[in-house]
């Protein structure tokens, strides 16, 4: 076809496109291949065959091809960018290309192989919905091809298309193709690639790229372009979990206060109950605004302005979420990290973490392992270097609101920035919170609403250690558990008195005091009991951080609840004391008359009688109050504290 004919043909196609543009959607895909697999040729072919190359570009390339002493047009030259690369005949960075058919606009993130391969591919893959992995039919599935597959799966690209290229050089033989399909399928299965497609092509000759090839008559599937045009985009969009990271506050005048942002996932409609993180304040969405006027709803990807029913203090970095669908809140992340900085990871550097619209300082507190991207083996590693991928723990200086990357790309991804050079050094994909209490005691986590317990060790202005040094004793939480009347309050009260008189910082928390104020809204259902103990644990944690010996006297009948409080505190600082006496002894004592009333049916849910009590399995101390006097019990507790080094000898 002559250039003029090309233009004619393109005009026809595009006129149609111009009319249909309202119908067009968008697919972002990435291409990966080893050097010389034919990636540039394929992209050139796609652009050429979809008439996306202008005559002046074509002329320039014809000229360049001639100057290289080659014939015709070298399609690979179309896509290669900077002069330095042209000179070295390599490409060094992700380049973006565009073409469109009447159905769809395409954005290609063209990621070259070579040295910085991993870094480039991760960058290109981060926004892609489809990956084309090129395999040279003559060479079969090489390490590199596996590496591309691995990175695609790591970045959760929903669709992977393996283009078996250079079929012309293997005489278009089906057995060659079939062997590659079998080989790669087995590998991809291990990676959990969701949607895997194979297409035999010749990028150079144009077989099966845009037009179906008779030379590959044994292949019944779609051509490469047809697949790109018809693959179901957006099927992987998360339209369930509403997450709205606030980007910018819009306040033109006193009467309007709107929160601008792009819906990271889920949908939102006016009137819905929402919660603002981190404050936790609940309110409703008053309106969803756009330039065109109020909207009935907004969904993932929409840039809108949200207004709230109540005056709530909201700023950039906060997140608006649905009341009964919260992200994880925490500052310690378990994540896969791809290191892209030239300087290796340094555990002592306070990197800047950018996550949604929130940023703070963060340390990479641990490298759990590194993955050899070629063999996919995990290996021990002290640090990560450029192009390394590994599993790490990241500790941020403020709580972040996140989801696992697997289910939510927008709230599960982050970058790390070097605080000295300001260069982006790592790309992270969150697996979840660093597993502490939740992992150890899965039953203790009351659903996704749980605020990750990790927030505990967060930067107090004056660290506890300094307070302890000044106080001359250690901080601890003594948790007295047991049935009503067992002696918890009496013993704890005496212990506190003795400590106080010895100059120790103390605080005693008991059920009655807290239920009067902070926990006044809670009843005695299992859920309310759990919440009661959770709050007590949090309060105890604060006094603990302040350097006190905190004495808590709560029936606290459920093991999980106590375990949760224990998980809030460092090893050795939670002393669980089981205050115990047999039930008939308690009935005999019955100081508040509760047992008698329960026996008459006047009190429901009395622990030990009509509600369960789960005795501790491995408490630090057991005080049998039917065998000990109060003073003996008190002495035992104090002796234990000295033995633990919490009190001076």
């Amino acid at each position, binding site marked *: 076809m002559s*250039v003029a004919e090309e*233009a004619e043909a*393109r*005009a026809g196609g*595009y*006129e149609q*496109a*111009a009319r249909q*543009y*309202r119908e*067009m*959607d*968008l697919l972002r895909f990435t291409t990966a291949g080893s050097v010389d697999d034919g990636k540039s040729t394929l992209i050139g072919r796609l652009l050429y065959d979809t008439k996306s190359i*202008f*005559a*002046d*570009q074509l002329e*320039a390339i014809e000229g*360049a091809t001639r100057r290289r002493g080659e014939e015709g047009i070298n399609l690979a030259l179309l896509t*290669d*960018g*900077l002069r*330095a690369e042209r000179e070295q005949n390599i490409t060094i*960075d992700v380049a*973006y290309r*565009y073409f*469109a058919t009447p159905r769809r606009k395409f*954005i290609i993130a063209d990621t070259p192989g070579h040295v910085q391969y991993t*870094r480039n591919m991760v960058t290109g893959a*981060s926004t892609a919905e489809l990956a084309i992995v090129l395999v040279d039919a003559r060479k079969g599935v090489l390490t590199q091809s596996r590496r591309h597959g691995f990175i695609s799966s790591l970045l959760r690209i929903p669709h992977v298309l393996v283009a078996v290229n250079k079929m012309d050089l293997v005489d278009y033989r089906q057995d060659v193709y079939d062997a590659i399909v079998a080989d790669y399928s087995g590998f991809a299965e291990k990676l959990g690639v969701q949607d895997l497609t194979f297409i035999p092509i010749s990028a150079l000759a144009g077989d099966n790229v845009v037009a179906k090839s008779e030379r590959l008559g044994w292949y019944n599937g779609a051509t490469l372009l047809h697949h790109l045009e018809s693959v179901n985009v*957006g099927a992987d969009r998360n339209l369930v979990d509403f997450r709205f990271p606030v*980007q*910018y506050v*819009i306040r*033109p005048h006193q009467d309007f206060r709107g929160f*601008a*942002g*792009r819906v990271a996932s889920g*949908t939102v409609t006016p009137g819905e109950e929402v919660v603002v993180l981190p404050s936790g304040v609940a309110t409703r969405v008053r309106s969803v*605004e*756009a*330039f065109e006027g109020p909207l*009935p*709803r907004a*969904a993932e*990807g*929409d*840039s809108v*302005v949200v207004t709230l029913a109540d005056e709530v203090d909201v700023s950039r970095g906060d997140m608006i979420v649905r009341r009964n669908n919260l992200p994880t809140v925490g500052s310690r992340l378990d994540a896969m990290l791809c290191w892209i900085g030239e300087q290796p990871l340094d555990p002592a550097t306070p990197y800047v973490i*950018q*996550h949604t*619209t929130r940023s703070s300082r963060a340390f990479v507190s641990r490298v759990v392992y590194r993955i050899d991207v070629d063999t996919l083996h995990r290996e021990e590693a002290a640090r990560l270097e450029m192009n390394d991928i590994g599993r790490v723990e990241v500790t941020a200086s403020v709580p972040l609101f996140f989801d696992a990357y697997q289910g939510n*790309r927008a709230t599960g*991804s982050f*970058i790390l*920035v070097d605080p000295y050079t*300001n*260069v*982006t050094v790592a*790309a992270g994909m969150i697996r979840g919170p660093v597993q502490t209490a939740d992992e150890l005691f899965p039953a203790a986590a009351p659903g996704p609403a749980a605020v990750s317990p990790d927030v505990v060790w967060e930067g107090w202005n004056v660290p506890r250690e300094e307070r302890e040094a000044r106080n001359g004793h250690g901080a601890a939480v003594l948790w007295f558990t047991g049935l009503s009347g067992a002696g918890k309050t009496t013993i704890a009260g005496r212990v506190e008195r003795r400590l106080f008189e010895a100059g120790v910082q103390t605080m005693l928390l008991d059920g009655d005091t807290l239920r009067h104020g902070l926990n006044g809204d809670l009843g005695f259902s299992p859920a309310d009991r759990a919440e009661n103990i959770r709050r007590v644990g949090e309060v105890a944690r604060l006094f603990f951080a302040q350097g006190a010996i905190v004495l808590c006297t709560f029936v606290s009948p459920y093991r999980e609840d106590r375990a949760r409080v224990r998980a809030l505190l460092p090893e050795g600082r939670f002393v669980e004391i089981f205050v115990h006496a047999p039930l008939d002894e308690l009935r005999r004592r019955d100081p508040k008359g509760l047992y008698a009333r329960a026996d008459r049916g006047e009190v429901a849910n009395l622990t030990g009688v009509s509600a369960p009590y789960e005795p501790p399995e491995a408490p630090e101390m057991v005080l049998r109050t039917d065998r000990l006097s109060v003073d003996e019990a008190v002495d035992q507790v104090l002796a234990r504290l000295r033995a633990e080094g919490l009190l001076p000898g």
Partner: protein
Amino acid sequence: MERVTIPPPAQAPPAAPSYRRSHLDQLESESIYLMREVAAQFERPALLFSGGKDSIVMVHLARKAFWPAKFPFPLLHIDTGHNFQEALDFRDRLAARLGCELLVRTVQDSIDRGRVVEETGPHASRNALQTVTLLDALAELRIDAAFGGGRRDEEKARAKERFFSHRDRFGQWDPRNQRPELWNLFNGRRGPGEHFRVFPLSNWTELDVWQYIAREGVDLPSLYFSHRREVFFRDGQWLARSPWVPLLPGEAYEERTVRFRTVGDATCTGAVESTAATVEEIVVEVAAARVTERGTRADDRRSEAAMEDRKRQGYF
């Protein structure tokens, strides 16, 4: 009399809302996101306003991004002094209508102050000189982020350009020192004296821009639409008659029906012969175009790597 309330008939459940979005919706949302990100991350952004359709579309997007507030940055125009009067009038009307701040810095001023030397000869253009005026203006106004209308489809060297393009203290662009952009996390951290160029239209093509102009009913200067004009033919393109470009031997003015695909410096912006008088006709024409938009710019035609060289020096 007792009233009986009849319950309303059970309503058919509303059709599941469609969350599908067209390519233009997605491009628009992405650009708005970028503009807000700049407003949040930078202290003194400005929008480089050339008078061309891309910067007019940027202004339109900026209005949408911050509505109902005004967008929180001024327009900055680097005036070569060789602009089409239509474009200048349009610029002033637009700024007045939106009530936004318009700052103008002129190449003439840079010449008068001896910062640059005027090119001479028949091919003289102030296009290269404006880089100096621009960098001086950014420094003078202490602008830390300047929105540009550059698109990656325009030219090969732009294909690797970032949304957030880092410039060193000398305003220069180093292709090896650009930050990878992952997901939609943009790193705008900078050292003293450094700034960013931000390209909200990076992912748009010329056709997208025109389709969007049509969809949104964006107002454009008359230059973009077919009109009769005195032009002359040079180096394979039509240049407008202007006081700044003397005719060479053998060249002559003639009246033609033309329109401009880009609106820049009149000394190097070529017109194309066209009868497209409405946005819809232009969309069809652009869709069928045989030549890239930049193909009508004499400054890009000087050498294959021209664009890349200018970019390194701090060009738009």
